């Protein structure tokens, strides 16, 4: 394991905000188990729990907490200087951090989604949700990691994207769905395990290409921004 990965992981798990990750997946899991044990029709609880809660809230929010935490927290408290004063090409800093962020988010979200998918329909749906969520976690992490380098308020901006753009506008202005990671995840999951539970207007090719574009594009942006990283002086 690289030193950057090690420090990032220790920093992430050592901070108290890591505990914020636990409740959301647990709620998702709890609701799925409850609906199933009460014998509610999966056609009724599937979409709101799997999509409305799982893919629209749990995945982006967990990715936001982790994605802005791996580098943003270090920028906030100033410890980033220790990593930056090393003769490392900046991609060697960004990629391990992205890997930790995407890995932790994917693990945190994919597992409850898998269980919920199995309870709602089948193992195949569970796997589809887990795989699509992992891909979504990568795209979200790249976005939020880059955000923590372009703005001083990455969490706020990330929330605006998730809640306003994906959540609100996505319901009213269908065109915004083309730029919504959430819709890509739904399209990909539906492609792997076609069921009536997942619906989106975004086509699978668009979703695949855009997921790759978002992941690569924002990673490149993050590397470039880190190259020109300025430490604010006493006058600013």
């Amino acid at each position, binding site marked *: 394991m690289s030193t950057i990965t090690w420090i990032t992981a220790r920093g992430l798990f050592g901070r108290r905000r890591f505990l914020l990750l636990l409740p959301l997946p647990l709620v998702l899991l709890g609701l799925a188990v409850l609906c199933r044990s009460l014998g509610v029709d999966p056609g009724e609880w599937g979409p709101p729990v799997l999509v409305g809660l799982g893919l629209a809230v749990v995945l982006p929010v967990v990715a936001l907490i982790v994605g802005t935490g791996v580098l943003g927290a270090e920028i906030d408290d100033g410890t980033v200087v220790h990593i930056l004063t090393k003769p490392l090409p900046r991609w060697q800093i960004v990629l391990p951090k992205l890997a930790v962020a995407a890995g932790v988010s994917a693990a945190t979200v994919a597992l409850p989604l898998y269980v919920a998918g199995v309870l709602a329909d089948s193992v195949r749906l569970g796997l589809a949700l887990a795989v699509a969520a992992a891909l979504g976690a990568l795209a979200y992490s790249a976005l939020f990691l880059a955000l923590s380098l372009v703005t001083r308020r990455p969490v706020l901006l990330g929330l605006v994207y998730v809640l306003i753009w994906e959540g609100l506008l996505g319901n009213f202005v269908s065109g915004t769905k083309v730029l919504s990671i959430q819709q890509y995840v739904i399209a990909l999951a539906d492609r792997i395990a076609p069921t009536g539970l997942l619906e989106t207007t975004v086509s699978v090719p668009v979703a695949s290409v855009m997921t790759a574009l978002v992941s690569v594009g924002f990673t490149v942006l993050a590397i470039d921004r880190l190259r020109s990283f*300025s430490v604010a002086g006493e006058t600013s």
Partner: protein
Amino acid sequence: MSTLSLTGVSRWYGNVVAVNDISMALGPGVTGLLGPNGAGKTTLLHMMAGFLAPSRGTVTLDDEPTWRNPDVYRRLGLVSEREAVQGFLTAYEFVLASAKLHRLADPAAAARRAIDLVELESAQDRRIGTYSKGMRQRARVAAALVHDPQVLLLDEPFNGMDPRQRLHMMQLLHSLGDAGRTILFSSHILEEVEQVSGTVQVMVAGRLAASGDFRTIRRLMTNRPHVFAVRSTDDRALAVALIAEPSVSGVELDPTGLTVRAGDYGAFTRALPRIALKQGIRVRQLVPSDESLESVFSYLVEA
């Protein structure tokens, strides 16, 4: 041996000019960067360390720019003013991580050597979060020294250190300077600079106000007239007595009291009680009115 060169370096934030047209070349030895708070020392150090792009001018380390060039960190170490450290690591882990990130051949040995250098062996296995300010500072210095850099930049390194730690840090900087390293440290405290370095660069309001041998600059600083505000039971009688005193170069009488200008700080402060006693006047207030560092520096700029 490495040389850090600044040529016509300026940096502004919007309308505020933080650093104004500074040129200097730093070679081996210890140099103090002296200036009041807000003079632009940190901004200048950040530009030297490649953490800020100059708005104008160039900063180079051995002819390579420091901005957008991580390779300079092979030869450059920085101890920033913000005392941020990963508190969840022990000092040894922290310094070892630095050594590994530098891709040193034997990171463990390098880490132990650096910790030895700052005398932190006894506490090296404790979490940095439990350290005092001075110890934390030393851990950061160890991390910055782990790759034995040619150039070491320290921003206010003596902040929060007790006198013994200060002395030790000064000795460390001296020995590094004597060994041919280029050391630059910033400070707003005159005495700190005096004890460490022979060469100083004085910054005031973003400009380089003076540079050269410390003793010469210090003499300029101590020989300036000092201004005191004095209030007593009989200001007029005191004024008459004071003007006869050789160390006093001027006395001004106004409704609130006396403004006394003294050429020699020590002689005047010794003479005043003696004169007051002799005249039977009681001194109610004696305030040096220009002892702020800013006034020392602005005097220097005018000189």
